[in-house]
Structures are given as C-alpha cells and as structure tokens.
C-alpha cells in the first residue's frame, strides 16, 4: 500500500476557482519526490492541501489508509507529515530555540520536546551556536536550516519542502540539497517542490510535472531530467540552445 495517496483532488482558495483540477499522485515510503512545473501550476497548493491548510473540495488525500481531507493541520502533523513553507516562515523575533520549540508545539510533553530540540541542534551545529539569537539575525541559509530543523522536531515520516533553495546563493543552496539528501538517508519520505528543477530532480527518485492543476506526467527522476519535452518546457533547454546559437 502506498504511504500517501492523492486521488483526484480539486482544491482552491476561498470562493475562488479550482487551482488543483483533479490531481492524483502516489507517494511511496522512503522515496524522494520532486514536483516541478511552471508558476501557478498548483505546486504549493498541493502541499498546503496535504497538510490541512487547505481542504480538498473533491477527491481525497489518504495517509496509511486514513483519509486526511477534513483534519486540521495539528492533527495531520500528529500523524507524521511536516511542512516547510516557501517563505521560510519563521518567527522573526523569537530565538532559534523558541522557533524550534514552536516546531514541537503539538507535543504536550515538555521533556520530550526538549529532547527533540536537542536532537535537532546536534544535527545542525550552526543552529546550536546561535540558539539564543533571534531568528531574524540569521543568514538566509541558516534560516532555511532552522525552518527544516523546526519541521524535524516532530520526527515526521513525510517532510514536504516548498522551494527550499529560493533566494539562496548557489553554494548555500547546495548545502540545503545535501541536507535534503540526508533526510532521505535517514529514512524519511521527502516531497520537494523546486523552482530549480535540475537540482531538485538530481536529488530525487521520482519527478512529477504539474501543469494547470493536474499531474501532467511523472517518471523516474533521471528519466524526467533527460526527457526532451521537459528539457524544453521546464528546464530551459530552449534558452540554452538559443544561447549556444548566439555564441
């Protein structure tokens, strides 16, 4: 049985139109998925619908056989799905440690929470060094690490990351991708939305191409990476060719 089954969901904001238009996807345990597609394809909306920030109007999201559709975010977090949103979404005036504490907000046991925070601080030594600094004083890369660390406090089975490399210098972005690879090695299931499709697919097992709210096509990540249609549409091959001709 698939770990997470998304079946024909339709999702939109408020009274607006559907952003996801009958999207289906199957997520297997322990694999890394990279979701790519043009702006407005519904990538972020998909992640928000899985973690309960939005509720599907039709269709279903099933995790380990349980339908998540109507559950609140805290209930979904409790079942083992964590989300790192696009804007890094930290609490700027809280310290690094307080941010991590918020990551474990749904844990009622304080001792357990402090242990989990320690675990994360061991994993990210730089955060340990800065544990009593306000989050807003961290660099972009450190903030992203904190956002990931905050999601790890709950020891999720599935971690979803929305454009973790956005706005980071290439070298820093690479260290974030290395971190993501480690998550996979630790046995986590990773769902990654990435604007930098090439980098994202390189660290993934499976790639999905979203367009206009549906799963346009999917396949093994290296197949997708070398599929000419994708190269042209989403990976900037056309642009590359044009550059070559111009040169």
């Amino acid at each position, binding site marked *: 049985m698939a770990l997470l089954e998304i079946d024909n969901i339709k999702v939109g904001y408020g009274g607006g139109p559907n952003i996801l238009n009958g999207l289906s996807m199957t997520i297997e345990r322990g694999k890394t998925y990279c979701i790519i597609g043009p702006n407005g394809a519904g990538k972020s909306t998909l992640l928000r619908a899985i973690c309960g920030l939005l509720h599907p109007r039709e269709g279903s999201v099933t995790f380990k056989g349980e339908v998540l559709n109507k559950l609140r*975010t*805290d209930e979904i977090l409790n079942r083992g799905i964590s989300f790192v*949103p696009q804007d890094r979404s*930290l*609490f*700027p005036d*809280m310290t690094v440690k307080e941010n991590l504490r*918020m990551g474990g*907000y749904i844990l009622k046991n304080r001792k357990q929470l402090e242990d989990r925070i320690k675990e994360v601080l061991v994993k990210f030594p730089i955060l340990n060094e800065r544990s009593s600094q306000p989050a807003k004083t961290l660099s972009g890369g450190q903030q992203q690490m904190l956002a990931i660390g905050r999601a790890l406090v709950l020891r999720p089975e599935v971690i979803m990351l929305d454009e973790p490399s956005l706005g980071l210098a290439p070298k820093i972005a690479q260290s974030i991708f290395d971190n993501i690879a480690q998550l996979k090695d630790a046995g986590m299931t990773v769902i990654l939305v990435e604007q930098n499709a090439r980098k994202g697919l390189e660290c993934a097992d499976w790639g999905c191409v979203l367009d206009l709210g549906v799963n346009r096509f999917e396949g093994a990540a290296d197949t997708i990476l070398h599929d000419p249609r994708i190269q042209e549409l989403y990976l900037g091959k056309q642009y590359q060719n044009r550059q070559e001709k111009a040169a």
Partner: protein
Amino acid sequence: MNQFVQVLLFGVTLGGVYALMASGLTLVFGVMRIVNIAHAAFMIIAAYIAFFAFDLYHIDPIISVLITMPVMFFMGMAVYWLFFSRIKGAKRAGELTVLLTFALALIVEGLLGYFFTNVYRSAGPSYATEALYFGRFFLSAGQFYATLLSIALIVLLWAFLKYSRIGYAIRASMQNLSAAQVVGVNVERISMIAFGIGMALAGASGSMMSFLFTFYPAKHWEWIAILLALIVLGGMGSLGGALAGAFILAISSNLIGYYFGPTWSPITFFLALFVVLLVRPQGLFGKKLEA
C-alpha cells in the same frame, strides 16, 4: 527643580495605568489585526461593575479586578465568537473589524446610558482621597496602588506570553500567522483566547478607572483617542511599544499641563499622533505592515 520631579512622578505613575489600558488594545491588534475601537467602552463596562461592587457590596475597587477580569475575559471570548469569527477571511475584513468595533462601542454606550443613566460616577474608597508622602514628594494613594497593580499585571502578562504554551502560540501568531498555522497552532482558538485576554486587561483597567477618574457612558471616546495615540506612537501590535508610548505620553502630557496650563495637556496625544504618522508611521517599535 522639585516641582519638575513632582510632575515627573505624577507622569510616571499615570503612565503605568495607561500602559495597562493600552496593553490589551495592542495585544488584540497584534494577533488579529483588529483595531478595537470598543476597547475603552469595555473598560467603562468594567468601571461600572467595579463601581456597583463597591457601592452595593463594599468590595474594594482594587480587589474588584478578581471580578472584572474573569467577567470581561469570558465576555471577550463570547464577543469574538459571536462577531469576529464570522467575518474572518471575508473581503475587506480589516475595514469590517473597524466598523464592527465602532458599532460595538455605540451599542455598549447606549446600553450603559439606558441602564445607568449619564450621571458622572466615581467609586470612593478611602485611599482615593489620601496622599502618600515620599520625602518632599507626594502621590495620591489611589494612584500609587493602581500603578503598582498595573505594573504587576503587565509583568504577569509578559511572563505568561514568554513562558506558557498559549503564550508561545500568541507570540507566534503575532509574528507570523501563517507560520503559526503550519506548526499546528489552532489560530482561531488562539485568537479567541487573545481577545479574551485583551478584554480581561480592559476589565482590570476599568477597575482602576472606577476610582481614579470620573466616568459616564460616553467617556470612552476620550479614552480610546488617548489609547490609540499611545499604541500608534509605540508601534501597533508591539507590547513594549505600548509601554513606551504610555510612559512617554503620560509624562509629556503632565509636563505640558504643568508648564502651559492644563488646557494644553490633552493636545499632547494628538500632536504626538500627528507627528508619528508624518515621520514614522510604523511607530517607535512597530514593523511596517504589508498593505
């Protein structure tokens, strides 16, 4: 010089009470982006409760915070649930909350006038007319106790926000509402509690008001003008800013009153509002808000 210190002392003690009044207003704005025009009207409700508790049952107005705070806490939660939770996510929710709180202020004023008439009231515990001497300086005993209690309540509020689980959730919601949702904060529930706490602080302020100042149903307009000036100066949604604004304006209005005559004292607030909006619209400690 002695006179100056005496005036300063009046200003500082008054500032403590202003700070208590403003803290609830700024908390509610910080979490929910609600500019609660009815904040002072709720203070007046609490002032009436404290007044009648003293008049009819001889309950000390300072002790009456034990009644006004819980009563206003639950009234606040009910008001939030009845009105504010319904317009959440509506188009122009920001403007709607201003209209809604304006309407609430009018309704409260009307009801209070209907039941208790527009007679000026003030509770008269013995300490309201006593003076305490500190060397060459003096303070009204009532003002002194009210300031102590206000500061104690503010310290309690701060500790609650800093250390309790709900306090963490409230601060998180103030700093980044969508991130709070992502980590599993039930934002709707936290908003209701924060609104209740804001009203409980208005309740305590009302208890203080009952013996420090005279009040009548329409008095809240004067108060809300002052309180809005305080929190705009400090930066809306910033608790530290509300405290700073309260002390700065209480002290300067007292000094201006002393040097230029009491008629000029109220102008301090509006002048400050004017200057802040021109020079630093986000206030001393506020953050620029996205439109």
